[in-house]
Structure formats: C-alpha cells, structure tokens
C-alpha cells in the first residue's frame, strides 16, 4: 500500500471536504494525510463548502472519489450533493462519508448513492483499501479499459 505508483499508472485523485456548518476538521485532515501517505493525490478544502462549489471543484479536478467528513448532522445534506453530482453528469464519481452518522440514517445515505459510510472506530487502513477498491477501474485511463 505504501509504495509510490508505477510511473505509468495514474495515482488515485480524491477530494476531501466538508459541507454544512460544522467546522471540526481534525478528522478530515488526519484522513487526508494518511491517503497522501498511501500515494493518493488529495485535493483538500476547509470546512463550510457550498454544494455547488463542491460539484464545480470535483468536475474541474476530475476526481475519482469524494470523501465527506460529517460530524454534526451535515450528513443530511449529502443526498442533495448526490443529486447535484448526477445533474452535472458526475454520477461516475464515488462518494464516501466518514464521521458521526446515526445507524438509522445510514440507509438514507446508501439509498442516495453513497458507496460507504465509515463510523467511529474505522481504521485508516480500511478507509484506504475501500477507496482504492472504489477508484480501481477509474484509475485506468479510459482507452485501456
């Protein structure tokens, strides 16, 4: 896992961000640093992003995965983000959520198209492996598929 990518392979590109009004960004920083150490290219933003700004950013950066840190009910905004991504033709981008998500809300997120919810106690290695698996096919340039 901790090896540099082969020169011909494209590193996985991921956006780590926070939507909503919560400003606790320790978790997103820890995850961002770990993913960098796993060889990924991590676009990092501060908290309080607007949904439109996240969509524009994901489009311009052509990311494979979006990781959202949600600690204070911001996960309830995620279905809106999923819809906005689909509206912009970005349904191919995988979305994962980490943080405090009540068990009874998890289905809401998965139904909206979120690939995985990481609850407290998730290991960084599990997060890295899941993201690697999710990005897998997308990390290969189109014409080589």
């Amino acid at each position: 896992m901790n090896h540099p990518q082969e020169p011909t392979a494209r590193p996985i590109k991921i956006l780590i961000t926070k939507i909503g009004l919560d400003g606790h960004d320790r978790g997103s920083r820890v995850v961002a640093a770990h993913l960098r150490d796993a060889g990924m290219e991590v676009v990092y933003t501060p908290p309080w992003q607007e949904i439109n700004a996240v969509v524009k950013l994901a489009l311009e950066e052509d990311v494979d995965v979006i990781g959202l840190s949600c600690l204070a009910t911001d996960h309830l905004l995620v279905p809106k983000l999923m819809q906005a991504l689909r509206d912009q033709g970005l349904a191919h981008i995988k979305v994962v959520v980490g943080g405090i998500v009540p068990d009874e809300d998890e289905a809401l997120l998965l139904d909206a198209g979120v690939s995985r919810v990481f609850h407290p106690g998730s290991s960084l290695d599990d997060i890295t492996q899941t993201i690697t698996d999710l990005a897998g096919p997308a990390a290969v340039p189109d014409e080589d598929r």
Partner: protein
Amino acid sequence: MSTAVDDAAAELVERLLGGQRAALARAITHVESGAAIARRILQAVQPGAGTARVIGFTGAPGVGKSSLINAVIREFRSRSKTVAVAAVDPSSPISGGAILGDRLRMGEHGTDDGVFIRSISSRGHLGGISATTAQVVDLMDAAGWNVVIIETVGAGQSEVEITQIADVSVVVCAPGLGDDVQAIKAGILEIADVLVVNKADQPMADETRKQLVAMLGLRRAERRNVPVLTTVATTGEGVDRLVSVVEQQCQRYPTPKRGQRPHKRLQTLIAQAAARQLQERLATSNEAMIHDLCTRVSRGELSIDSAARTLLDAVLK
C-alpha cells in the same frame, strides 16, 4: 493503434473546443497520466492554442502566491476576462502522494463559471512545475480561457522552468526574507518580469522593496527595467496596478509568443521530454544488470560514471 482511441480523442477535443468544462478536466487527466490518447488530444488542440495570456507566479513557500492569485483572479474578472489556473503542489518524495491545497485560498471563486482551477501534483518533477504543465496550459488555452495563471510549487532559488511556459513571470517575495546578498544571488529573482513584495502591510516591506530596487541597479542596463510592486493580497491593495503592469508586459509580444515559440525554447522542451522518457526506461531496465553494476562499483572496480555509461548503452541499444 485502434481507431477507437482516435474517435474518443476527436470526440473529447470537440467538446473541449466547444467550451465544456468536463471535457477540459478529463483531457487534463489524460495528459497528466501520459495515456495514449493524450498525444492525439494535444495534436488536435495545437491549432487552437496560442491566444491566451499565460502568467506565471513563483516564489518561496508562504509568501502568499495563492492568496495573491485569488486577488488577481478577482481583478481579471472585474475586467471581464475568464481565468484558468494551474496550481502546482509538490508530491511526496516518499509515497508519491500529494496534498493539493492551493485552491483553498481561492475559495471566493468557488462558484464562478468564469474561473477554472485545476490542482496539479508535481509528480516528482523538480523545477517548480510538473512535467506536463506546459501541455495543461495548451489545453486551457485551446479551450478558450482568456488568461491562464500558473502557480509553481513554493520555489527556492533554482525552480525557474516557469519562464519556458509563461509570457510573463511574476516573482513574489515577502518582507524580511534575507539580506541584500540574497537579493543579488543568481536564481529565481533573475527570471522575474515583474517583482512583487506581498504582505506590504508588514514593517519590513519597504526595506525589502528597496533591496530589490538596489539589486536591479547592479544589473546590466538592458536587464534593469523590472517593475517592483507592493501588494497586500488579503485586502487587494496594489492588485489593480499589478494586473495593469502584467497586461502591459504581455503587450511586449504583439501575438503571444507561444504561437511562434522560438526554436531554442522548443529545443529545451523536447530535451526535457526526452530526458523524462529516458528516466522512465532506466527505472524499468534490467534489474540483474543494475545489481551487477552496484556490486562492481561498491568493490571499487568501476566508477559511478562508467557504470552509468554502461547502463545507458544497454538501455539505448
């Protein structure tokens, strides 16, 4: 090669030239990863490139390049120009990964459709930019963006490759960085078409400006004429003047010079591409041979130079 790749490239380029942002984003991804489709894309956009003004911003880490670019974008937008930014951040020498955080200082343009920001990992390339930055700029140019801004990694004294791409290179300094000996050393200050002392609200700012002016006074007459400006990126102070000076400097080239790039510059770019390809081949060359060479060098039977020559001969054969 399959015609499927040709078709995919043609379709993507058509959407890119039509102004679709997603197509530009995807084309950049292809070019960055050196995919087979990249060559066809670059070939197809060449005729469309050469109309954007390309401005490079470089300077040490922490001088405020990203914040200044944020203010410069605002100024260009008020002059009705569209702006694309290629913001290069360093990749980790250990893992190859990167944290791309330049655009977090450009958040105020987060929902403006007249601004396109792309973060770029240097992917191990030294020199202040990534190996493919020049091609990324060509794509942005062909896609119709009026102004293309390149932000280099926080550069030290020798990351000067930006001059090979940019029409105008802006070197950003912060107050109180070193004495006047630093200011007459060779390197990054020499490549400046415009010098900016950012954070000019800080006490040492005027001192730093004077040192830079004094440095210019020691130069040969024809290289003295470099404007030294002061800005406060966070308030926007001095930014309108900076943009006016940059636009003036662009006028030095009746048509942007990338449309008629001098052969000397192309020679450099081609040599760099060749070096890159060679390095890739060296990295994947015969392990047994490299092991043998290491053994002989460590025994003192062979010098490093002759080992390198042997390896080169084998790879180029």
